[in-house]
């Protein structure tokens, strides 16, 4: 474990502050120092609130000195995707349209982290209205990958992936509607948890597709994700789609053994047409899990292409319905990629959308039947490591649309089924770009994924690798 405060894990730094080994001021200053080093190279932050963060840190230190510990995140500075409403703060949603939008409420997920004592460092960049899988943003510029800055971060939680990878924040909220947490986790080499639909309240989070949107964390480790999920999960009177299903002890789950757990390896789709490095890392990840005591079995999944297609129909219609007023009044204020995606919905009849919604329960039942003998399914997050920013630039590069379609191939089916999926750093390609695998679980069974992911991280150190800080190479 690093003793440099900004390089510590969320869990470790929270304990160090609580035990008064480090002050919140020291930790916040260390993060701000790192942000100053990296931000010109990454464009990961939308807003940096240095003065306010240090003031909040001093208040946290003063409170702790008086014995007033507000919670397990007392004095821990965090930054989140700029789509979580925070009363009194500008929340741009990565857009020009909301450049000056000041939230009047605070999102439930964010409030629960604040209630646990976290303080605000600023806000993180994202794809415009969370509607893009690469990290491009026509208004605020592309976010860059700390491992190779000409490569994409993945989106839409682009700033979250980039900032956690560069250790500018200990963790960050993202959102996942078609892969927007798992792809930045994969491309940037961090841990990301796409939660079960309904596990975490969406109240006060900018909507993209109300049937598919999920809230979740990106962090260094599985343990950090477990800590945040435990704080955020559960029913919410502000969001009646937030489930009242029991919230287990996720931190305890990270300490459980994986001996005897069955992990399914798909026989097709997720193993087809893989980049050689991704294929190799999938095999190596399976080997580690087997060595740690998991039983590895083959699973035949229902047709994932149909799930992906249904997912695209649902997200297209729901997103455009949210945006219709602005499409009429302010079409010129959208970036070209987002405007193009929003226009796609006009091709979809209402009956087709409702068929896609009606099929969802049956499709989930078929998936449950196909995976009834396993505790989780393992698959790559994407078939390739991060492409370059240029080769995924729709509108300026021929073939970029095909690249983007390929990126989301393995993530969309999970959103349609509403399942949880944990992306874990699993290795590096020969190009030195990170690669992650996703563990796909049963509805509301994040705990099993956290058990498997934590066991993998105890046996490997891919999650602990840190990209070289600019200007520090000999």
């Amino acid at each position, binding site marked *: 474990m690093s003793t440099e405060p900004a390089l510590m894990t969320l869990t470790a730094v929270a304990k160090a502050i609580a035990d008064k080994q480090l002050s919140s001021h020291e930790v916040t200053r260390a993060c701000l120092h790192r942000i100053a080093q990296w931000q010109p190279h990454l464009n990961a932050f939308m807003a940096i609130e240095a003065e306010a963060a240090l003031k909040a840190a001093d208040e946290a230190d003063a409170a702790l000195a008086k014995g007033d510990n507000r919670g397990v995140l007392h004095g821990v500075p965090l930054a989140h995707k700029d789509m979580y409403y925070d009363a009194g703060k500008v929340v741009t949603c990565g857009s020009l349209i909301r450049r000056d939008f000041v939230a009047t409420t605070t999102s439930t997920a964010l409030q629960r982290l604040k209630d646990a004592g976290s303080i605000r460092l600023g806000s993180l960049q994202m794809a415009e209205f969370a509607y893009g899988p690469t990290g491009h943003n026509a208004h605020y510029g592309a976010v860059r990958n700390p491992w190779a800055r000409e490569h994409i971060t993945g989106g839409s939680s682009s700033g979250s992936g980039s900032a956690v990878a560069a250790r500018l924040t200990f963790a960050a909220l993202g959102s996942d509607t078609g892969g927007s947490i798992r792809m930045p986790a994969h491309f940037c080499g961090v841990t990301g948890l796409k939660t079960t639909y*309904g596990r975490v309240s969406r109240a006060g989070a900018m909507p993209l597709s109300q049937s598919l949107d999920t809230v979740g964390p990106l962090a260094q480790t599985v343990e950090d994700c477990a800590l945040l999920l435990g704080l955020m999960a559960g029913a919410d009177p502000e969001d009646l789609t937030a489930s009242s299903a029991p919230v287990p002890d996720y931190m305890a789950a990270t300490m459980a053994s994986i001996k005897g757990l069955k992990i399914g390896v798909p026989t097709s789709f997720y193993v087809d047409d893989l980049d050689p490095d991704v294929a190799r890392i999938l095999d190596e990840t399976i080997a580690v899990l087997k060595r740690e005591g998991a039983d590895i079995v083959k699973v035949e999944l229902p*047709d994932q292409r149909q799930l992906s297609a249904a997912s695209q129909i649902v997200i297209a219609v729901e997103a455009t319905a949210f945006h219709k007023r602005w499409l009429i009044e302010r079409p010129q204020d959208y970036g070209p990629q987002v405007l*193009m995606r929003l226009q796609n919905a006009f091709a979809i009849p209402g009956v087709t959308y409702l068929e896609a919604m009606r099929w969802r329960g049956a499709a989930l039942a078929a998936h449950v039947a196909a995976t009834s003998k396993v505790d989780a399914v393992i698959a790559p997050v994407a078939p390739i490591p991060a492409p370059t920013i240029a080769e995924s630039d729709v509108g300026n590069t021929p073939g970029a649309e095909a690249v983007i379609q390929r990126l989301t191939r393995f993530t969309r089916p999970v959103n349609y089924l509403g399942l949880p999926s944990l992306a874990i750093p699993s290795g590096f390609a020969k190009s030195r770009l990170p690669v992650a695998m996703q563990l796909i679980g049963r509805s509301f069974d994040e705990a099993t994924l956290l058990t498997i992911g934590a066991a993998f991280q105890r046996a490997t150190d891919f999650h602990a690798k840190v990209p070289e800080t600019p200007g520090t190479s000999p």
Partner: protein
Amino acid sequence: MSRPSPKAIKAMADVAGVPIDAATSQRVSESIGPAFEGFAPIAGTLPFDLEPASFLLMQLAKVSK
């Protein structure tokens, strides 16, 4: 179910009150076409008594187990 033609897309956008030009309707047809084709085996095959809320029931059924 077949992918909608650019002409049909242009008409639907007009009805929705967000007119698009011919080039845009052509692009939309090409962009959304694969989703239509991927979903075609399901469209028109679903049983009568199937509601969108069956998804939430299926999620909860797993929790209660």
